[in-house]
């Protein structure tokens, strides 16, 4: 091999390393994006697992309004609404809101709720000790449930925020779940006696 060809080959190998590296970087953007959003809270995602409530001083000087919005994704037939659409809480105070769901379809459907907080930065200070959104929720045909969400607002919440909105979107994930821990929804409401 001539000197020239050797040099060319060396250079090609170096450039191919860049190409492969950038292909990997494209995929690395996925976890990087999540980490970046977790740290900065800029896309309004809340934590996926329960926070532990350690009794802290309740800041009674501030009152925060938290509003709940519900929607279902395209093609998801469930009825879904917050039983309380707005609560006023002091930072540090534990509060519970229930969400009503009913499956009007004639088959079992598994749902996954995805939260989104606006303004996004408030997501960092919304601590959920219990949430139906941590797990997938199955309902048989006609079943209904009242699903709780228990939370407290971190007293560190920036002073300029006195109001934020939490939106839950229900997605139909039937047949796609691997996180499904229970066959029956733990929050099921009493079924009417008569067989429908």
């Amino acid at each position, binding site marked *: 091999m001539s000197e020239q060809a050797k040099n060319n080959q060396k*250079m090609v190998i170096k*450039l191919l390393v860049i190409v492969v590296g*950038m*292909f990997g970087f494209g*995929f690395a953007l996925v976890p990087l994006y999540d980490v970046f959003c977790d740290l900065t809270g800029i*896309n309004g995602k809340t934590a996926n697992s329960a926070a532990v409530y350690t009794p802290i001083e309740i800041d009674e000087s501030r009152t925060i309004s938290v509003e709940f919005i519900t929607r279902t994704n395209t093609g998801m037939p469930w009825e879904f609404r917050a039983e309380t659409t707005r609560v006023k809480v002091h930072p540090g105070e534990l509060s519970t809101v229930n969400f009503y769901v009913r499956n009007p379809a004639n088959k079992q459907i598994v749902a996954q709720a995805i939260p989104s907080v606006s303004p996004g930065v408030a997501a960092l200070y919304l601590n959920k000790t219990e949430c139906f959104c941590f797990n997938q929720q199955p309902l048989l045909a006609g079943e209904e449930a009242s699903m709780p969400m228990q939370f407290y607002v971190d007293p560190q919440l920036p002073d300029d925020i006195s109001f934020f909105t939490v939106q839950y979107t229900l997605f139909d994930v039937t047949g*796609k779940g691997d996180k499904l821990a229970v066959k029956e929804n733990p929050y099921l409401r009493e079924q009417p006696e008569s067989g429908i």
Partner: protein
Amino acid sequence: MAHSSDTIAPEHTGAHEHDDHHDHHIPSGIKRWLYTTNHKDIGTLYLWFAFIMFLIGGAMAMVIRLELFQPGLQIVDPNFFNQMTTVHGLIMVFGAVMPAFTGLANWLVPMMIGAPDMALPRMNNWSFWILPGAFLILLASLFMEGGGPSFGWTFYAPLSTTYSGDSTALFVFSVHIMGASSIMGAINVIVTIFNMRAPGMTWMKMPLFVWTWLITAFLLIAVMPVLAGAVTMVLTDKFFGTSFFNAAGGGDPVMFQHIFWFFGHPEVYIMILPAFGIISQIVPTFSRKKLFGYASMVYATASIALLSFVVWAHHMFTTGMPVAAEMFFMFATMLISVPTGVKVFNWVATMWRGSMTFEVPMLFAVAFIVLFTIGGLSGLMLAITPVDFQYHDTYFVVAHFHYVLVTGAIFSIMAAVYYWLPKWTGKMFDITLAKWHFWCSLISVNVLFFPMHFVGLAGMPRRIPDYALQFADFNKWISLGGFAFGLSQLIFLALLIKACRKQGEPVSSQVWEGAEGLEWEIPSPAPYHTFETPPVIK
């Protein structure tokens, strides 16, 4: 017609197999083009391929303008309209502009740096010949059940993952192949420029076209793999149950836009930096002066390339980013106008007090400088976050990027073809036809794109097959301009066919009075093999 070794039209050789060849190294007929590893042949193939794609993508634009000629739905159904906007964009970006620049690089880079050929001729052959397959796959998808891709060339999730047809798989594979082709082409350009320069061709003696292409090639190898990653994620989200962009599975559809535009914004500069190089070659020739501020041109190009990596989210101002991020991307974007302004200033300063003449390449170059600057200014308007909320996804954006891509990139490619065509064929092209082509294109392209600013500011959304009645008059004019611009390109086709048939006055090796550079020191037409012994660099 005996010198088919020198013709630049691939279809000619098939028809002239019985001609006797003076150069016995070249196989005849279709095999010559299939097996060729010659940088000039491959450059010719790329340029013809790009031109054919330009006509096909242009025909799709004609369908779009026909539908928008009048308000209401009359010619095509909305799904087909969406396929037209999508495939028009994909073909023009990946099929017309990028291969045309690669073709020019193939023809010119070795001649400009005094190299006998590209560094990796066999790979060069492959990087061209996988392209027709890629576009055949993409075009074939239009005829499938459910139609081709209809989610816009930006293929945002969930449009491409949830609401798209099965032909999305074909779209993904064709983008993979286009990307592979671009990466191979870019590697070839980099290795050629690093390793094959003639002795004495130092970095800061390289012509600007070579410099801009070198920087473009680095952009290509940096971002085309990211595009490949993005389409792969779309593929697995759609067909294999992953959730990169699906919120139900823990993904995020907004992340698609981040990944896409991390590729997409450098891509924009991939389509304009070689144009800057071309204009920097042509303006000095017809001003009969040295290029003003050579070094600043090189540094400006490099800084544009670096900045292009930190401005992507200006395409996403309305996705709900925090104010701090919007501020950052706004100012970073505006910063790009500094090096770009340096370039425009240098071109104007080169012309200043020059002994200017207006041959056809210069006409296109001057039109480029004026019209590209208009496109740049509307880009500066779009960079301002608060006003972008109004302009986002309107025809104002369409006007902006067509000014920088059609009267920018495409005009520069036409300027380049007119500038170097006599060197390639050895004959002067038909100047009358060329002037008709220029003036018809110049007038019609402005009738076509300028009113788009107005309808955009008034709120007409892009990618919609119908519009409010108030936009009817403007759209009529835009469509008429579009048809005229489309027809004007047939003049170009006629001119190119004449040129490839070797009609016209023979030209000297210098061709243009003020031209300087190694490519003008070899005979016209450029022999099949050049600089087998390296030239002496003064």
